[in-house]
């Protein structure tokens, strides 16, 4: 396969991320390792959302559900003393896929406003479920006793964990790229582009859309497993509806239906949050405490005026 300028830029970005740990160590700034690991985890989640939102045209407002399920799978197994990483992450992916299948089976049949409201409502249901289960900390959540244990890697080594997240991110981007260019991906893009035409040439969009929904949920569940290991804390807030909104915003901000978009968007949003919260040029309380005010305004402006997102600034065409 030939490499376009865009894919070189993406590879360059990943290489830059790979160079961060030694540099951060040299400047004794482990904080950046932590921040960028978080960025990469959200980039994985945003990539999974991009598959159905960007390429499939399914405006899921409930993607935080799978972050939460992945996180709960790891946290709950850990709570019962099962720390085997392969098992924990396998359950995270499997449970997310199952829940996505159940939610998708109902919601993918609908479209437009219904789809948005239904995905949002089911995620809210899971959020309330998380809050109401006192055993796992309810509202407050609970601390993860141990990070997931693997034979080949020690996640307590922050740098090793960082590189594992980077590798999974690279895999997720490749996976979504291959999916959307496969026969399968052509069908979900066709159904987004023109549904009547897609039926007229002989496709039933539903099974393809549902499969995409499930794959997307499973990949996001993996991101959830990473996230709970990253924060070492499990909370229903992972499934808060605002989290779903942020994931959507990352996809749009970075550039919808592009390979690099979710990474750019996650980086831009999380770094922006970080900057707004720590901005020293303006009176501190006004900005730090109320950064969401500015974020809200930026969000509206991006939607109204910068529809192609950051990837629109890169050379070459959107895919």
């Amino acid at each position, binding site marked *: 396969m030939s490499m376009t300028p865009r894919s070189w830029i993406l590879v360059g970005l990943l290489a830059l991320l790979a160079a961060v740990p030694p540099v951060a160590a040299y400047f004794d700034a482990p904080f950046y390792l932590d921040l960028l690991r978080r960025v990469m985890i959200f980039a994985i989640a945003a990539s999974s959302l991009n598959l159905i939102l960007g390429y499939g045209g399914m405006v899921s407002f409930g993607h935080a559900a799978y972050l939460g399920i992945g996180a709960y799978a790891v946290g709950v197994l850990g709570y019962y003393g099962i720390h085997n990483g392969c098992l924990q992450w396998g359950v995270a992916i499997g449970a997310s896929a199952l829940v996505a299948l159940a939610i998708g089976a109902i919601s993918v049949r609908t479209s437009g406003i219904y789809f948005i409201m239904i995905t949002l409502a089911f995620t809210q249901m899971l959020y309330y479920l998380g809050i*109401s289960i006192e055993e796992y900390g309810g509202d407050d959540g609970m601390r993860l006793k141990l990070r997931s244990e693997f034979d080949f890697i020690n996640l307590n080594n922050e740098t090793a964990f960082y590189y594992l997240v980077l590798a999974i991110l690279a895999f997720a981007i490749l996976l979504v790229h291959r999916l959307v260019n496969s026969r399968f991906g052509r069908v979900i893009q066709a159904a987004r582009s023109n549904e009547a035409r897609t039926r007229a040439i002989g496709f039933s969009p539903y099974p393809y859309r549902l499969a995409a929904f499930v794959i997307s949920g499973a990949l996001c569940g993996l991101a959830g497993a990473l996230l709970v290991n990253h924060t070492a804390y499990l909370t229903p807030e992972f499934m808060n509806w605002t989290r779903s*909104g942020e994931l959507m915003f990352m996809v749009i901000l970075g550039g919808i239906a592009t390979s690099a978009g979710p990474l750019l968007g996650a980086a831009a949003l999380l770094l922006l949050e970080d900057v707004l919260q720590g901005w020293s040029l303006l009176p501190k309380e006004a900005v730090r405490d109320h950064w969401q005010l500015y974020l809200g305004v930026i969000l509206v402006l991006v939607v109204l005026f910068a529809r192609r997102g950051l990837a629109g600034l890169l050379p070459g065409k959107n895919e």
Partner: protein
Amino acid sequence: MNFVLIAEQTLNGLQLGVMLFLLAAGLTLVFGIMNMVNLAHGALYMVGAYLTTFFYQQTGSYLLAVVLGLASTLVVGIVTELVALRTLYERDHLDQVLATFGLILFFNELVAILWGRAAIFSTIPDYLTGHVEFGVFRYPLYRLMIIGVGLAVAVLLWFVVSRTRLGMLIRAGASNRAMVAALGVNIRLLYTVVFGFGAALAGLAGLLAGPIYSVQPGMGELILIQVFVVIVIGGIGSIRGAFAGALIVGMVDTMGRAFLKPVLSTVLSPTAADAAGPALASMLIYLLMAVVLTFRPAGLFPAVR
């Protein structure tokens, strides 16, 4: 379970139901007529609650505060429509979701800046604080008033929608937008009127809710998602559907929270019932939505197309 408890919870369910209806009525029309996803509807509910509380504290007159609160929510709603939402009607749903999500963040923080993040105390005048005696049990006058106001609004809406020219346009708009535009109706004006109407109803719900729920930033979104469930169950664009859906959701949610645990404890062990009761109760309306969608994908009362 005794009669008193059941009667009380029925009234509570009704009260939640009419509250949901006030929010759902305006929103379902915005969805149906403008084909627009407006997440910021909950923000108007919050604004209504805050402004009325503020005016009551300032003026000391509840009635005046209600009038000012409603009017100013209406103004906030119309200004939002003119400044931000109007440009979104022609955009796709994704843009609408994100932009109105941005508006929510904006409004929530703005309220937090003006009144702080903690819940503020919202009071009612003395003449609404009492209870009404129903023989064996008594029920708060204020909550009864909410039920009364909600039902009165429902009747009024029914009258407007089914008996007036505006209502005819609204019905026609919900089922066939292109036709209404083709008939030469000023569609922009119709949109603004409908939106303002919805904003005022949301403000009314907010000001009524203030004294019984907590008035704080983000209060709008918690109820908004329940309102979505109402609209999905009732069918987008249908006032009748919004009314039926709101009462069903209000009842099911209230009854589930009140009675699921005792009912479960008759079949499960007390500890299991303690754990499963609240969890199941909190999921009940969403499960109901799933069941309705399975059998009636367009809701119980789909707007005629």
